[in-house]
């Protein structure tokens, strides 16, 4: 595939991430911050997010598995998680986090546990999609240098 074809494909992938609600305008802000001095900024911050959020997920799992459930602690973790996902424009993940916090505030353990599965799913789906997206961009960059 020539350079232009790849660019087209990448633009389509990117567009679908927004159209399908995986990303919101905050992701565009990240892209705007990327420059020649820091050409991998978006990928770096996304990678950082996944490292950080993986840790949070583990903490949340532990808290959900303990009895009695410490809802206050749960809310703290989820506040952090929601904040980070919002900062990178992870729209669906952020939405699910907001729902979780409502269940948490109501002390609804069952709903929290159920909802947390959704969060992990969305978290994983987005990761795969973004990894693919970055991979394509990497390939396009290589293609352009030929």
């Amino acid at each position: 595939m020539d350079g232009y074809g790849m660019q087209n494909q990448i633009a389509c992938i990117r567009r679908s991430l927004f159209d399908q609600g995986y990303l919101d305008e905050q992701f565009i802000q990240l892209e705007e911050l990327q420059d020649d001095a820091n050409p991998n900024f978006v990928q770096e911050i996304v990678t950082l997010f996944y490292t950080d959020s993986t840790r949070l997920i583990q903490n949340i799992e532990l808290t959900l598995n303990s009895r009695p459930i410490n809802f206050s602690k749960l809310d703290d973790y989820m506040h952090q998680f929601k904040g980070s996902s919002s900062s990178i424009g992870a729209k669906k993940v952020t939405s699910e986090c907001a729902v979780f916090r409502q269940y948490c505030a109501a002390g609804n353990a069952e709903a929290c546990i159920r909802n947390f599965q959704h969060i992990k799913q969305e978290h994983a789906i987005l990761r795969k999609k973004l990894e693919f997206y970055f991979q394509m961009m990497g390939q396009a960059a290589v293609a352009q240098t030929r």
Partner: protein
Amino acid sequence: MELMKSSDNIIQDRTQQQHKQEPEMQAQEGQQEQGHHFHVLAVDDSVIDRKLLEKLLKVSSYQVTCVDSGDKALEYLGLLNNLDSDSTASSSSSSSSSSNSSSCSQSSQREGLKVNLIMTDFCMPGMSGYDLLKRLKGSSWKDVPVVVMSSENVPSRISIRCLEGGAEEFMLKPLQLSDLEKIEAYLLKSLHLSCTNIDKDDDDNNADHNSDNNNDKVVNNDSNIDKGNNSTSMNNNFSKRKALSSEDTESRRPKIKGLAVAI
């Protein structure tokens, strides 16, 4: 929808690049006029938000120092050992070369440190952004503008509390480049009031800048409201999320400095 347009049009990126350069150029001009770079101290416990804020500030040509807690911020500013912040003279009189009040002298380890603006997250483990704000305003760094940020819709009583506690503004995260343009106004103000080891302006400038700030706030609030309401709907992330209710606007206008108001 804005997003559809921007994702459809790759050329849009170029326009966005140009927009990005505008605040950067303005900041550079401001800094060059004064002959130095603004230095911002950013306080946030989230590693993602620190990285984001650092990038936002650097792109806007500011010098940035990031710390992950209020304690670290106080330590950086040389305030950690001061239990009674009003009596800094006792530990630092030797470093003050000016005949001005002791309020501007620092502990000797931070001599010459210049900070033009402090941006702090509100919700942090341990010392909250509000606690940090109060400590700062009761210290030799009280004239440095402080902006408080929060990742969620806090009740207006909290944002008002911060403003009355001396914060310049309360901003919703995640921050964007357009937010930094507002911050520039506070930074320019801080140049006149910059609290270094050398000297400090008199209170007349404070009064002038207070009225300027009130005007800025009114302008900011109006434009915030124009950008769309801060909806509780989770799906509505496209609209700018900094609108305040009109009730908030009216409460924010009178800037009460140094006066604790029980809410």
